[in-house]
């Protein structure tokens, strides 16, 4: 059985992502939109089984609040930072875009990481290229 990675996102407004946006802008990080997902590693034989595994866990998934999908990438894409807290099995994936809706470049991601999104004492961040 292989590990699959499932992204869990809010389908209602994400106040944490909005708070991150406001805080980052206050800190001078040039970002226009922040999105957030929780990446959950699931041991499952196929994608459907992985999604069903998350759907069944009521501590994770509420169909009124969340949408889920299997993530194919093994590393963050453009405009993304993945942050794992030490000893945590899941990760937070942040996606930052600029005024044109384009992924922000790595230097901006690094500023966001260092200014707010990652506490290096307890977390590890991977920045998308």
């Amino acid at each position, binding site marked *: 059985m292989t590990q699959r990675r499932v992204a869990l996102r809010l389908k209602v407004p994400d106040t944490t992502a909005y708070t991150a946006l406001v805080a980052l802008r206050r800190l001078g990080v040039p970002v226009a939109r922040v999105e957030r997902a929780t990446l959950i590693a699931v041991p499952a034989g196929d994608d459907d089984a992985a999604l069903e595994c998350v759907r069944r866990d009521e501590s994770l998934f509420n169909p009124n609040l969340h949408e889920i999908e299997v993530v194919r990438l093994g590393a963050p894409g453009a405009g993304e930072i993945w942050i794992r807290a030490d000893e945590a099995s899941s990760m937070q994936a942040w996606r930052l875009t600029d005024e044109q809706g384009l992924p922000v470049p790595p230097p901006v991601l690094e500023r966001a990481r260092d200014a707010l*999104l990652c*506490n290096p004492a307890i977390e590890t961040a991977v920045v998308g290229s």
Partner: protein
Amino acid sequence: MKRVAVVIFPGTNSEEETVRLLRACGADAHLVHWSRAHTLGAYDGYVLSGGFAYEDRIRAGAVAAHDAMMDPVIDGARNGKLVMGICNGAQILLEAGLVPGTGDARRPTAAFTHNVPPHFICKKVYVKLAVQPRRSSITAALPRDAVLPAWAAHGEGRLAARACEMEELETGDHLAFVYAHADGRVDDAATPNGSALHCAGLVNREGNVLALMPHPERVFPPHAALFKSFVRGVEAS
């Protein structure tokens, strides 16, 4: 009389108990709402009380640490004003880099993070002064090895840091309070959250900023020794 601000972020709680105990200890203490951040610079000392500032979004204390409310607190701490953070206030001080203060401002080098086991705890505990009282102006009026009752009420109170930083916390005398039994013994059984080094509270290098996870102000009957010492320190500063 010197003035103490009890700082209110969106999501702060315990501020009424905190300001009441400060006043009972002789302080001219005031609640300062987040809309009044511009007035904070005029105060002589700061207390960040418990709660869930900004709902602990991103991480406990992270957003508050970067709020405009913290600008005058950080400036004040750099200028020697006394700052005490309790519970969420302690988490904010670590996220703001004021405690242990071994890195740059707003670059945290440690955290009070998820308990082990990962549950919210709510229980009476004891904390023991683990430094010489005069190591910090905030604890200077406490007796050596003081054991104080307090109320632990947190899901994220476990001290965690990288190994090199942990060594600095020990050798740099940052470990202000440890969890203990009522008789002063320190061991794993007295530590409710798996905190490294049995840590309940940290102090910065200069000794003017203290971050303490359990709540002294929630104990009944009130046990005011730490608050009295803080107020005396503010008056002397």
